[in-house]
């Protein structure tokens, strides 16, 4: 503190956001945290939960397509493919 290495006020409370932005961030917390179920996009883990009934693949090609697609974790815990954009779009940096 003596060397000015850290600013206790900012370190403890973060930099001060303008009131309207603080309100907007609070509103995001309230809205998203208030959801009854979580919506999570999982780009890496594909497949199904063990306790979820999975339809038999129609063909080998179909199974490959599904395994390669990104998926979203639904409210009931089942892993379902995301909308078409997910498999088509690539991540930027």
């Amino acid at each position, binding site marked *: 503190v003596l060397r000015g290495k850290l600013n206790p006020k900012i370190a403890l409370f973060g*930099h001060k956001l303008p009131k309207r932005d603080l309100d907007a961030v609070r509103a995001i917390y309230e809205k998203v945290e208030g959801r009854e179920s979580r919506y999570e996009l999982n780009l890496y883990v594909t497949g199904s939960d063990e306790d979820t009934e999975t339809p038999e693949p129609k063909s080998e090609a179909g199974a490959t397509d599904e395994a390669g697609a*990104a998926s979203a974790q639904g409210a009931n815990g089942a892993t379902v493919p995301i909308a078409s*954009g997910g498999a088509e779009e690539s991540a930027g940096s």
Partner: protein
Amino acid sequence: MKVAYWPGCVSRGFTPELHGSMAKVAPLLDIELVELDRACCTGAGVIAEHNQELADTLNARTFALAQEVEDAELMMNICSTCQGAQSECQERLDASASYREHINQTLAGEGLSYERGLTNKNFLWLLVEEIGLAELRSRVVRPLAGLRVGPFYGCYIVRPRKRLGIDEAHPRDEYLHRVIEALGGTVIEYAGMRKCCGFPIITMNKEASLKQAGRHLGDALDAEADCLVTPCPLCHLNLDLQQPLAEDVVGRELQMPVLHLPQLVGLALGLEPKELGMGRHIVRPTSVIDWSTSVVGAAA
């Protein structure tokens, strides 16, 4: 070059010398910083573990604010941890139009919307890819000749490689080496330069965290580095702020100065150690200040 500038919380609260030195260095590189002072913390990966959608929404808001900065070429940060956390969220947002729409619905109340494809680069990446090493070299007025600098990348800016865009065309896990060389310094390699500094576990297992930091610092000392340089303020906290405690844990004297990247760049661009806030470090960068004094003395 005009950039939407994201300094991050740590650079403002815990390492103001980083924030300050970036402000001093930017005009010397013709970078115009437009600070995103309406944006909140990235969550540093912690919020994403608790609630992924919340972290993605908060970061999408920051990206949307960056996209509103008129004539900004890209968004720039000075924190590897922010880069890692933001890249993780952006990867999800850019991967799915329906997910992005879902997130943007939450932002709509503020009139904000994130459009896919924002370019967000750490200052290190910007130096190499936007300014260029040749241009950087041409702006050096005080080459770091004789200064032995150990790069400390940490983990957030080098892993996972695909998400961070590291490939043959963009060897971002080599950029610190290249920048040190472009500034005229000598690169000192050592075992821990791309390993975790230990910061993420400090609240759970302080001894292991300090042992990690102490080991990396000891490796650099054994390799006879004069100082380390890092693009991550959280690594700086564990390597500098906690260094006296790390010395106790590893049972050896370390006294290894740890510089922020803008400080090292500023030194080569002619700024003085004091201007760059080096007096604020816990481990006084004596070797760097002595080097600076001797170079200025020799020039006189």
